[in-house]
């Protein structure tokens, strides 16, 4: 039996259940990252010698990753637009680009982390590095999660698309909402950790 209101919106909320569900999930994600941002604030305000981000970090990698994630957000909405236009091949192309850009983001992150470890910078080295690794590590896990879901839709979504393209398009919109949220978190992490 199918869950009701997965395609057509409910009369009382005006939304299909999937979309309401993903927004409630994103609200919980805001609280998760919000708690860590509050921790960052508390540590920074309580420290007499808080280092500049450039003391430990190289902003050029983060700037490059910002451009990569922003571009992946565009390819994600393009994937949704192509699904909505009922063009599965173009949808798959843009979705694979989104996953590919996520992969590029992770490679850059790996280069960044490797450089830190080469300099013997670990979470235990300084409280700044502790919050840096916590925030960027958690964010990286979110990128990885989004890549898995988007990769699944790109590689194995044909059957679901053929069965009900409208439902499939809704699912792409929902996975896109998560992906954009991940982009949104990075938009704040970039200046807070690397530039200030």
């Amino acid at each position, binding site marked *: 039996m199918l869950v009701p209101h997965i395609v057509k919106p409910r009369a009382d909320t005006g939304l299909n259940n999937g979309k309401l569900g993903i927004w409630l999930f994103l609200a919980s994600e805001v*609280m998760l990252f919000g*708690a860590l941002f509050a921790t960052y604030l*508390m540590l920074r305000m309580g420290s007499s010698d808080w280092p500049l981000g450039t003391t430990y970090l190289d*902003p050029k990698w983060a700037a490059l990753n*910002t451009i990569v994630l922003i571009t992946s957000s565009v390819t994600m909405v393009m994937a949704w637009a192509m699904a909505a236009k009922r063009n599965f091949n173009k949808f798959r192309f843009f979705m694979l680009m989104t996953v590919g850009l996520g992969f590029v983001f992770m490679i850059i992150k790996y280069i960044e982390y490797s450089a830190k470890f080469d300099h013997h910078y670990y979470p235990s080295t300084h409280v700044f590095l502790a919050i840096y690794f916590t925030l960027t590590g958690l964010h990286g896990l979110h990128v990885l999660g989004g890549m898995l879901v988007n990769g699944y839709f790109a590689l194995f979504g044909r059957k679901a698309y053929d069965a009900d393209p409208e439902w499939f398009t809704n699912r792409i919109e929902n996975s896109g909402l998560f992906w954009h949220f991940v982009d*949104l978190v990075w*938009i704040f992490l970039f200046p807070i950790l690397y530039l200030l």
Partner: protein
Amino acid sequence: MGEKHADIDRHVRVYLMVFGALLVLTAATVGAWKLHFLSPGAAIALALAIAICKAALVAMYFMHLSSEKTMIYWVLALTVVFFFVLLLVPVLGSFDVISN
């Protein structure tokens, strides 16, 4: 969503414009940081203001908030309230009255 193809094409044009704006704002963030013409406090305020603008563009257009239903706004309003409560916790901690 069942939108017409012409509507989706209009969306796509908006997405590309937002993409351009996001790239410009990213360049502005890096540019303001590199030029060192601001005091630390002003630099923080500017970087956060640009980040808020970028986040608003992503939320309004890529996440379709500009055309979303009222229910979502209620969920987000509640989230914003609790988010600021979380951010205030460290400040409230500095007013700790327990002593000795």
